[in-house]
């Protein structure tokens, strides 16, 4: 009796050990599988991108097929529209996040705003592009950098709202109470105390938003369209790095492909740098 029980237990024990080994192997291979693909992508991006890199990228505009050229018009266009979107989106995002965290933290309306904001945060960006098309491009009658900027701003706002609110919630209430006890009106408490305390975190939000829109392509395709020569006129079509990558990568020309890879490397480098700075700042905020 005792012997069979031991044998039964040993079989059970072996089975459990085996299940455990299988599980550890699977989970390890999942991690390796994931990292291999992602490493593969970065490797091709680096090797193709670096080969096409050079000073001409920054000095010459996008060429017709078969000619030499760079990406200067796309770089300038991306810079203009990104800066514009941040200038428009950041104040709205910060004020809205402040409202949610400071004025109506538990209000019913705040619940709705928070919900809607999180939907906008993950909504397909191409749909937001359609919205701006209907709102700006159709009434204006033509594509323009203004429309592209607004489309990007609509993407910036929810990112900034979310991080601003989260960071303000981390500020200890004692700080607010101390300032209020000194007689500061609520707006002073917010501007001089809680914003100050949450500064690094709020900058993180803006950086994350810039990182997000630097690579956005879909909403630009039918708002800013693109432009094959250098243009700083915001009422007309304007080139942008992601849109150029899209157009050139899908073309049959070898030298356009090279420029697309160079653009892809520039965009990824920008995004990764911004995300790393944002992470460092966020860490500083949380400590």
């Amino acid at each position, binding site marked *: 009796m005792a012997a069979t029980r031991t044998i039964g237990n040993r079989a059970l024990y072996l089975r459990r050990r085996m299940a455990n080994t299988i599980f550890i192997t699977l989970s390890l291979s999942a991690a390796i599988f994931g990292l291999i693909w992602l490493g593969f992508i970065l490797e091709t991006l680096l090797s193709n991108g670096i080969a096409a890199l050079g000073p001409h990228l920054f000095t010459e505009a996008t060429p017709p097929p078969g000619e030499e050229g760079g990406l200067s018009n796309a770089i300038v266009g991306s810079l203009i529209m990104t800066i514009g979107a941040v200038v428009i989106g950041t104040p709205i995002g910060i*004020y809205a996040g402040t409202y949610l965290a400071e004025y109506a933290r538990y209000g019913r309306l705040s619940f709705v705003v928070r919900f*809607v904001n999180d939907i906008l945060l993950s909504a397909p960006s191409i*749909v937001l592009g359609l919205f701006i098309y209907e709102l700006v491009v159709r009434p204006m009658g033509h594509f323009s950098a203004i429309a592209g900027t607004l489309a990007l701003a609509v993407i910036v706002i929810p990112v900034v709202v979310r991080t601003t609110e989260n960071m303000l919630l981390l500020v200890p209430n004692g700080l607010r109470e101390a300032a209020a006890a000194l007689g500061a009106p609520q707006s002073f408490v917010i501007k001089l105390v809680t914003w100050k305390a949450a500064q690094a975190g709020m900058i993180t939000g803006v950086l994350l938003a810039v990182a997000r829109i630097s690579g956005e*392509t879909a909403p630009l395709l039918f708002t800013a369209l693109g432009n094959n020569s250098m243009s700083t006129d915001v009422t007309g079509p304007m080139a942008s790095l992601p849109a150029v990558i899209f157009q050139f990568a*899908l073309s049959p020309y070898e030298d356009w492909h090279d420029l697309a890879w160079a653009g892809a490397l520039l965009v990824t480098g920008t995004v990764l740098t911004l*995300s790393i700075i944002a992470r460092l700042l966020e860490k500083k905020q949380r400590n």
Partner: protein
Amino acid sequence: MTDITLTEPSALTARADSARKAGAGDTRFRITAFAAAMMVLLIFMGVIFALVSGAMPAFKAFGFGFFTTEAWRPSREIFGALGPIYGTLVSSAIAMVIAVPVGIGVAIFLTELCPRVLRRPIGIAIELLAGIPSIIYGIWGLFIFAPWFQLHVQEPVILATEGVPVLGTLFGGNAYGIGIFTAGLILSIMILPFISAVTRDVLETVPGVLKEASYGLGSTQWEVMWKVALPYARTGVVGGAMLALGRALGETMAVTFVIGNAHRIEPSLFAPGTSISAAIANEFTEATTELYTASLIELGLILFFITFIVLSCAQMMLRRMEKASGK
């Protein structure tokens, strides 16, 4: 005392003045903050309104038949959404089938099995990769992955499954490299870091005591994970997966490059197809007629509706999880 009240009226009015000014500034600040919050609501309603009004001509022309028509012939002004809807749902489903188990595996590896030294670097690497723009995945998919996939996976699989019932149909046809299946694979690689990051965060909220108690009873790592940690974190894991599904459904650039842009539904998963977002991205600027544009906007409305439902569910689950973990 009397001296003070006599000599201070100007100071008092100055103070009252500054208090009044501060009060006015206070109200102004409050109203600005409120207006900004309303702006978020306004944008959301604006999106719905713009899409509905833009889609009106198509809705009037096709009614509900739009959802059940496969044909998409711009030259004859016939538009049906079935092809793009099918492509969107199937490519996202393929992505989820692959990315959810692998993503959870990666998260378990990171929280439980990974040596401490490697935990942070790998975690950071995965988070950074979640931020790489989708156009990068698209260009990589088109130039590198699709040719490789065509040669080393599609051709052997098509040969191997030829004549086999069901599988032969699912993996039949020609090896194009691009197609719905390729789009699903690229999507799975894209949402993988996302699922891993969310799942890891949720698994980290599992109280150590629970796991320790289970280990104390003699459980193996697998049993602790499968029977204690994952059930505890279930709502959050599902919420994270649905958030990733929302991404996959609306993902544009990565899909546009590799799905093939063919408005038709074929039984084979390897066949080229299209998705809602790819159709809009490819054809919007070429749409010359009112009805063509309106049909594409109606596609956008359908996409917004689908992602809205998925994202709402995701949010509700993640909120419940947050409440349960006492945040």
